[in-house]
C-alpha cells in the first residue's frame, strides 16, 4: 500500500498537472507551498503511525533527520504533483 502510493505519486508527477499556485481564503491569498507543507505534516504523522505499527521506530536512525526528510519529501512531492 505504501509502495503503491509512492508509485502513483511519481506517475502523476511525470504526467504533470498544474493547478493554481495560490489559495484564496476570504480574500487572502496563501501560497501553495504552505498548503503542501500543512498536508505533509499530516502525512508525516500518518507515516509515523505506520512506522510505529510496524515496529520500525527503534530501527530508524537518526529519527530527527528521518522525520525532517519525510516532511520534506511529502511537501515537495505534493507540490510537484499538484502545482508544477
Amino acid at each position, binding site marked *: 500500500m505504501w509502495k503503491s502510493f509512492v508509485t502513483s505519486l511519481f506517475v502523476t508527477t511525470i504526467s504533470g498537472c498544474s493547478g493554481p499556485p*495560490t489559495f484564496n481564503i476570504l480574500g487572502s491569498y496563501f501560497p501553495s507551498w504552505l498548503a503542501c507543507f500543512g498536508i505533509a505534516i499530516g502525512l508525516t504523522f500518518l507515516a509515523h503511525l505506520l512506522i510505529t505499527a510496524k515496529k520500525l521506530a527503534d*530501527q*530508524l536512525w537518526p529519527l530527527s533527520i528521518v522525520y525532517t526528510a519525510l516532511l520534506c*519529501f511529502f511537501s515537495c*512531492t505534493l507540490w510537484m504533483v499538484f502545482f*508544477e
Partner: protein
Amino acid sequence: MQISIPQRFRSKGSIVSACIVVAALVSAGLVLRGVALYPRTDDAEVTANFIGIAPVVEGPVVQLPIHDNDFVKKGDLLYKIDDRPYLYALQNALAAQMELEGEIENESRRISSQVNSVDVANAGEQSALANETRAADEIEIAEAAIARSEAALKQAQADENYAIGNFHRVQPLLDKGFVTEDDVHKARTTADAKTAAVDQAKSQLQLAKASLLSASAQKQQAVAQISQSRAEVKESAHSVLVLAPLLAQREQRAAAVRLAQYNYEQCSVVAPFDARVTNLTTSEGQYVNVGKQLFTLIDNRIWWVLANFRESQISHTQPGTPVDVFLMSDSSRKYHGIVESASFGVTPDPDVVGKLSEGLPDAQRTLNWVRLASRYPVRVRIIDPPPGIFRVGQVAVVVMRPGHRDR
C-alpha cells in the same frame, strides 16, 4: 539498545532511513529544478492601456449617452458638446470665403478693363506714328510745291524781262511811225501783266514755303504725340492691378473653413477604440474646458499582466515565451499569455545607492550582508482575453512555460 552500530547499518531500519533521506533530497532537487526551469511569481497584476478623454473644444455637454463601466465600441458617441457656436463659426468662415471669391471676381473685371485701356493707349501710339508719317509726306509735298513755285517765278521773271524789253524796244518806234499806238499799248499791257504774274509767282512761292513750315510743325507735333502716347502706354501698363494678394488670401480663408469644420466635428467625441468607461462622475450640462479630463477609457483590445521577476529570472523571460496566467479572482481557470518584453529600469534602492539628489551623492554607510535581488516588471500579453473578465489591478499569478511553445 545493546546493538552495535555496524549491526544497525545492516538492519532494515537503516535501509529505510537512507531511502527516505535520498527521496527527500531527490524531491527537493526536482522542486528546485522545476522552479528554475519554470519561473513563477505571484507578484503580478493585470493592466491595460488607458487614456483620459478630454475635449478639444469647450462648451457645455448636451449629450452623454454612456454610463460608468459601460463597454463602448470604436466610433460610438461618448459625449457631445453644444455645437451651435462652432456651427456659426463655420458659417462665418464659409461666408468670408465666398466674399473673397466675389472680390476676386470684381478685381478680375477691373483688371480686364485696365488691360483694355492699355490696348487703347497702344492704338493711340499707332495713330501718332501714322500722323508722323503723314506729316513727313506733307513736308515732301510742300518742298515739291516750293520747287515748282520757284520754277514758275523764274519763268514769270523771264517773261516779264522779255515783255518789258519788248515794250522799251517798241515805244521809241512809235514816234518814227514804225508801229501803231495800239502795238505800244499792247506791249505795255503785256509787260504789266507779266509783272503781275511775277508777283503772283512770288506769292505762290511764299505760300509754298508757309505750307512747308506748317508741315514741319505738324511733324514735330506728331513726334511729341508719339512720345506722349508711349508714356501713356507705359503708365497704363504699370497701373494694371494683379490678383496675387487676393489669391494668396484664398488658402487662408480655406484654412479658416477647415479649422472651423474641425472644431465643429470635435463637438462630438467618439471612442477611439473598443474600451471600458471608467471614473465617469459627471452628467449633461457640465461645462468642459479644453484639455480637461472628463473620464477614463480602458483600452479593451489588449490586456497585459505586469509580473515582477527577480533579476536572476529575467534571462528566462525571453520575448515570445509562453506563460500560464491565473487570476486570483477565479483561480480555477488558466489563461495563456506570451512574454512581450521585460523592463529595463526600476528605481534604484535608496538604501543601497542613496537618494538620487542634486548636489553631492547620498552614499549610505550601512551595508547589508545579504542583498535582495531586484525585481523587474515583465509584460505578459494575454492571448485571446475573454470579454468582461479582466480588470486593471487584478492580482495574478504567472508561471513561465519555456518548453511549451507549441501550446
